[in-house]
């Protein structure tokens, strides 16, 4: 069992390794007063110099939120959140808006460098990634703007998009995740401060990977970013999202909304490596990651693929979903969720099959260690019109230690006889059957174990773009041999 022991050790060491992103950047902050009310929303809107319609939209969302109650169905436990005891807007203080990277506070740039996000274009990963970095509430810089503009791709912060592309924003904002969708989406709609906006025009294959890096720095702040990605007919984009936060004893709320719209023949690949501060061993501090992510495959042959590696956050509560409206559209969900210490994760996906011949594939790998709880919760729904729909779901859980929990809660609802739905799930240490199979073919026990554990998360890591796969592999710390990605 040496190989397994080694794997377990690796998981432990990775998860227990001092959270290296836990530093605080000492940077002057500009904040809105604590609490949440109409004035705060007006303040945020004014700070961002938003048009009147946006403010009205926010206020409407705020009133919707007031009428909603916080949901409690997830298998996560946390003390009641006092929504008045947080700052809803915090921005690095700056006299005038930076015209180029050179004018950005060097302290800020150093922070991103420490995070391994070299904003400086020269240091970019071989120049293949364009980055939009969101620091607390505002988008600090978006790199490679020119090159993208040449291709016709719009990649900017949400605030800029509201200012410069109001028609697109008004057309698509909240068209996938309506304001009243859920409690946190409504809250986000009212107070979102920034985020990324991407529009890929018809027939364009985005020339590089787009990336956003989220960082919560200030104390007592919540981060409410809003991402909207639109892939027009026949276009393609790969988008990466990374997250970190300093180590703080109090919990911080991250309630983002991500909306993807894929039109005819387009494809969106959305990858996340979520490494928010998970809290300490006793579960003190850490981020509450309550995020609504949803994609609408509106067009024929549209494809959306979600890949997520969830290693951080005290509590993760999110279900990146696909609404498969267009005929022949495809949704994919690949997830690795690792929980340790007292982390709690309740994550999964929803695949709603509406169009004909829609296909979805769900691969979820959960690894629980310490005293954590890891839940896969997923829904596959086939509506009567979805002739020939096809779903395959596989969710596997691996338990490391006997104080943690692994749970699987799939919902399968089919209303079309020609739909084929398959769901498989296993929970195990290491499957005796697989071991037997390998042993039978002359593979030594240790090697066999290594092979099995190596294979456990491989399906998912392979889906990540190269730049992230390396990072994710380190984070997962479970790959015993060979390369991934």
């Amino acid at each position: 069992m040496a190989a397994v022991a080694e794997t377990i050790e690796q998981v432990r060491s990775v998860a227990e390794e001092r959270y290296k992103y836990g530093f605080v950047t000492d940077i002057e902050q500009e904040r809105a007063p604590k609490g949440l009310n109409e004035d705060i929303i007006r303040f945020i809107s004014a700070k961002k110099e938003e048009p009147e319609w946006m403010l009205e939209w926010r206020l409407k969302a705020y009133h919707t939120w007031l009428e909603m109650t916080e949901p409690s169905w997830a298998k996560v436990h946390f003390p009641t959140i006092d929504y008045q005891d947080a700052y809803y807007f915090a921005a690095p203080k700056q006299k005038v808006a930076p015209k180029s990277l050179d004018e950005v506070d060097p302290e800020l740039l150093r922070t991103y460098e420490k995070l391994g996000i070299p904003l400086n274009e020269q240091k970019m990963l071989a120049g293949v990634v364009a980055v939009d970095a969101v620091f607390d509430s505002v988008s600090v810089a978006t790199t490679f703007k020119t090159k993208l503009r040449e291709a016709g791709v719009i990649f900017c912060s949400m605030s800029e998009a509201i200012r410069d592309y109001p028609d697109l924003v008004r057309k698509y904002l909240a068209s996938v995740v309506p304001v009243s969708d859920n409690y946190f989406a409504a809250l986000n709609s009212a107070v979102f401060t920034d985020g990324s906006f991407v529009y890929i025009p018809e027939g364009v294959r985005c020339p590089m990977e787009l990336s956003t890096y989220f960082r919560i720095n200030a104390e007592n702040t919540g981060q409410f970013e809003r991402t909207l990605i639109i892939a027009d007919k026949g276009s393609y984009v790969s988008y990466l999202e990374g997250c970190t936060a300093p180590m703080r004893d109090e919990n911080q709320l991250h309630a983002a909304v991500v909306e993807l719209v894929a039109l005819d023949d387009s494809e969106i690949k959305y990858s996340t490596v979520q490494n928010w501060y998970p809290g300490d061993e006793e579960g003190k501090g850490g981020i509450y990651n309550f995020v609504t992510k949803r994609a609408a495959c509106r067009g024929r042959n549209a494809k959306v693929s979600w890949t997520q590696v969830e290693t951080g956050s005290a509590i993760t509560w999110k279900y990146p979903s696909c609404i498969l409206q267009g005929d022949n559209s495809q949704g994919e969900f690949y997830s690795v969720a690792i929980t340790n210490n007292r982390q709690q994760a309740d994550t999964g996906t929803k695949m709603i099959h509406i169009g004909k011949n829609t296909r979805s594939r769900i691969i979820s790998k959960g690894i629980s260690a310490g005293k954590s709880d890891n839940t896969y919760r997923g829904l596959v729904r086939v509506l009567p019109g979805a002739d020939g729909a096809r779903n395959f779901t596989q969710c596997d859980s691996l338990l490391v230690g006997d104080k943690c929990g692994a749970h699987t809660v799939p919902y399968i609802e089919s209303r079309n006889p020609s739909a084929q739905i398959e769901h498989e799930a296993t929970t195990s240490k290491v499957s005796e059957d697989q071991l037997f199979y390998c042993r039978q073919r002359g593979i030594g026990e240790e090697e066999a174990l290594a092979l099995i554990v190596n294979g456990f998360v491989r399906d998912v890591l392979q889906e990540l773009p190269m730049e992230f796969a390396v990072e994710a592999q380190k984070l997962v710390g479970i790959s015993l041999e060979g390369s991934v990605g």
Partner: protein
Amino acid sequence: MATADLVTPFIDRYHAARTAGLPGEDLPWLEQLRADGIARLKTLGLPTRRVEEWKFTDIRKLAAADFQPAPAIDGALHPDLAYVLAEETADVTAVLVFVNGRFRADLSRTDGLPAGVTLGPLSTALAKGDPAVATHFGRVLPDVERIAASGFLGLSTAMASEGAVLCVPDGVTVDGVIAAVFLSDNPGENPVITHPRLLSVIGANAEATVVETHAGRDGAGPTLTNFASELAVGDGARYHHYRLIRDGARGYHLANSHVRVGRDAHTDTFVLTLTGALTRSEVNARLIGCGGDLRVSGGYVGDGRRHIDNTSLIDHAVPDCRSRQVFKGVLDDASRGVFQGKIIVRRDAQRTDGYQLNRALLLTRKAEIDSKPELEIYADDVKCSHGATAGEIDNDALFYLRARGIPERTARRLLVEAFLAEVLEEIGAEPVRERFTALAAQRLNAHAQPVLEEAA
């Protein structure tokens, strides 16, 4: 209508029943259970779709009906029921018959059982002060979490007046099948309700097989059977318990079974749902001794607008146990099937082997399957897996049969029959397996070829 309003008539009827007199009023423990039951009904109300365990089964309309206590039927049975009863009592070792929740001694037969085995109506057991009933009734799993989901069980306990009680002493084997037949009839149009019970207490190393049948007739008015059963299986015992649902077209059936499995005991349960407007079979099972082996499986045939719900919770409380759940069903017309299966593996329940499979065959565009196989695991050295599939008849298989000259209709029927026959293999007791398989085939044929049957 708010659920509180739905509950009130049931509570009123409870008080009416108390005034009329319920058995065992001199037993303090039973009085306590009844009081607890009605209190639970008041607290929980009747389930709505907002309750997770009832997400897919909406009984609000049903619960809003004005249910009267089912009338006593003392004389001859309706020919349809007599026919079913004759089928159910052929080749059995002993039989207890209940009609509309009342014991019919004239139709029952309990001689021929081994010495020491008691089999009789609940009312008699209560009157005699049977110690096994005093120990186990209402207490086989007193603290199951799913109870929290519905007030029906509380109502059943509060209203309990009659049912079947089987006690097999340690080391005794009962050969053959013990039948418990619950017949429902409603000559009128007003909906009627019964609250029958069943209690099986199987001693250490004992062995028995029970077939519990619920039947009604198509021409009858609406009937609701709010059934509760408790199975306490002792260490090393081998117990087989099979349920057969043959309700009438307007027969509604809500069953709540509590199963407790002792050390090294083997328990296999199965529910075959053939007819009835709405059937919900809920099983709460707990393995409390190492080495326990439990099977909770079932098959069903859905057509018309029938609704079949199989909900189970298997709680692995101790190490080294096995559990297996296999549910398969065929859904035709606008019928709807629901499967909600959950396995809990507690912190210490190492080396648990749990398996869950749900497969549904959808034959039309209006049929629907909702499936939720759930795992909740807190121990690391376990082997738990589940699978679920939903789809139509395999076109390749159909083509294969057609290519060999089998007409499409026959080919389809064969494939459907084969699909269902597979799950019937889960039944451990051979004679029951054969009988259930034949009944399922008969049911499918009756449905597939109504025209031919009428001609014959």
